[in-house]
């Protein structure tokens, strides 16, 4: 990820003279901060040459999503179009991972303490994942078509270092964000202003606990 960002920055630095640290703070209607929201910035006025370069990652990078204690860890992640996910099964049992989402559909079994790569995620949007053996397991990946993406930290802040100035569409996504397409967008201009505070119109829906409702380890599908 760092390598990709550096690579993109290298390209971008030849087009933009200024760079800024951008900080976006996202709060619930009751003003509490929210961590692990996907936040991404899509350039609006980029020249076609730069766009072509920036938007085709030369190296296929991967994010790691663990299966640990019969949960997806992290529950949410964000990748750029063209990347893959490495599923790392930390449990000693088999998981049957699947995605139900459009062109990013996939499924495979991973034996205990093994790992497996997803296919290349070439379609933007939500990838809703589950395990066909443990129905309570649930995880999401959001695929974006921009190199500028992150998740809010525990202080509810999305921080983008060395952002080229210009006009962007700011998007906020979370599977439990109870709005159309689970996404909120607004246009921002990075220049004089580098920080924004955004209050969500609604509180997030309850996030699934990813826990079996049974406390016994040796259950079968009866």
């Amino acid at each position, binding site marked *: 990820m760092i390598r990709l960002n550096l690579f993109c920055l290298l390209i971008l630095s030849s087009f933009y003279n200024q760079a800024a640290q951008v900080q976006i703070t996202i709060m619930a209607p009751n003003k509490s901060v929210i961590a692990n929201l996907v936040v991404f910035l899509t350039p609006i006025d980029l020249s076609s040459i730069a766009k072509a370069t920036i938007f085709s990652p030369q190296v296929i990078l991967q994010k790691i999503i663990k299966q640990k204690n019969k949960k997806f860890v992290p529950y949410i992640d964000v990748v750029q179009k063209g990347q893959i996910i490495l599923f790392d099964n930390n449990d000693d049992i*088999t998981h049957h991972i*699947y995605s*139900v*989402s*459009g062109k990013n559909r996939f*499924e*495979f*079994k991973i*034996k205990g303490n093994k790992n497996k790569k997803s296919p290349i995620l070439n379609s933007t949007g939500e990838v*809703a994942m*589950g395990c*066909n053996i443990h*129905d*309570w397991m*649930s995880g999401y990946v959001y695929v974006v078509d921009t190199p500028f993406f992150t998740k809010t930290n525990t202080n509810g802040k999305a921080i983008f270092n060395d952002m080229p100035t210009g006009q962007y569409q700011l998007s906020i996504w979370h*599977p*439990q964000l*109870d709005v159309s397409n689970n996404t909120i967008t607004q246009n921002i201009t990075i220049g004089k202003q580098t920080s924004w505070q955004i209050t969500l119109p609604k509180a997030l*829906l*309850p996030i*699934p*606990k990813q826990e079996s*409702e*049974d*406390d*016994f*380890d*040796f*259950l*079968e*599908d*009866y």
Partner: protein
Amino acid sequence: MKNYFIKTIFFITCALPAHAAEQSLHGIVDTRLINVSAKSNSTSYLLGGYGKFDNKKNSGLTLAQLGVVYKASWQNNVSINIVANAFGNKKHENIGITEAFVRYKGLPNNAGWRLQTKAGFFYPKISLENNAVAWSNPYTLNNSTLNTWIAEELRNTGLQFTLEKLGKFNHSQQDFSLNLSVFKNNDTTGAMLTWHGWTSASRQSLFQEKLKLAPFPARWPGKPLAAQAPYSDPFLELDNRWGAHIVGQWQFHHRQHPFKINIGYYNNNTNTSIEIKGQYTWRMRFVHAGLKVKLAKKLELISQYMHGNTYMQGKNGGFAVNANFNNAFIMLRKHWQQHQIALRMEEFSLDDLDNTWGDNNNEYGRGLTLSYRYRLSKHSFIQSEYNWLQTNRPARWYVKQPIKLIERQLQLAFRVYF
């Protein structure tokens, strides 16, 4: 029919590429020290008596269950599942298959719909207690009387289709499922329930097993049921007709109080005018309902209810055995760290609706179970349990035993799951 079934499963197993399968073997070993006490010297129902437990007096150390589950699964979501069990009840030891089926478990689509199918020999979806490896009960040692009967006389040989709607892809906390089975090989179901009544055990009938009947007077030579074989064959097809079982389930993954409710109807749809080699066709129909709910942190309630009717008749309709049956239990269980305590109360009855001589099948009973489980390690448990059953069964008069009987049982188990 049985041979045909075994051959089919065998050929399917051979036809699937074994090298591509992921194979697994799991199971349970359950050994127990058992002490049974009853005021009269009643014989266990397993040995043809009216005793309600599967163990005799002074059973001592017993292998209550050795269950092994073999599973071979392929990437195309098809798996073969074979469950074998051995039971060491004194004078009634046996080993064999309790389930064998091919299963397809599809993946949900983006709306959350998922289809599953099973073909073979499998349990109908009724019990909310027996959800662990090899149909074992993780909560108590003895099953409720309701599920003891399921284990004794019910098994579907046929097809099962399950359509589920998982809520999670629509941000809903609710799942729904509809489960339909069509089956054969359950034509004598009802004989044991009617003739020995409700029982309490952890025993499961095996594919090849025959069950011993009590020597009630209607079976004496020259009497109405003289043609009845001394053993009932529980998984037998006599009339070549399909039966059906349908179950609907609603599951709500509420954060504080998740619950599951199911309601079902079973009808084996037999033609009741058939008798072959002493085995009669019994019509069996019942409704059942179950509830499992988390009442508070680490406190759960499990309850099941059943109401039905079963009857059989001679070839010319000259006599009949006809009974209504009811059963309900409530179990509360509290678990914390390595501990679990379960308390189960049950009430059950049989109402004899016929006038056949020497065949009084009335019964009324209540039961209480108190069980304590301690987890020694991830895989091993010790569990102690007290079972109390009070039953009123006039048929005991036939064997010169008191009609009203209280039976008690104390068990100490060492269970290993692997």
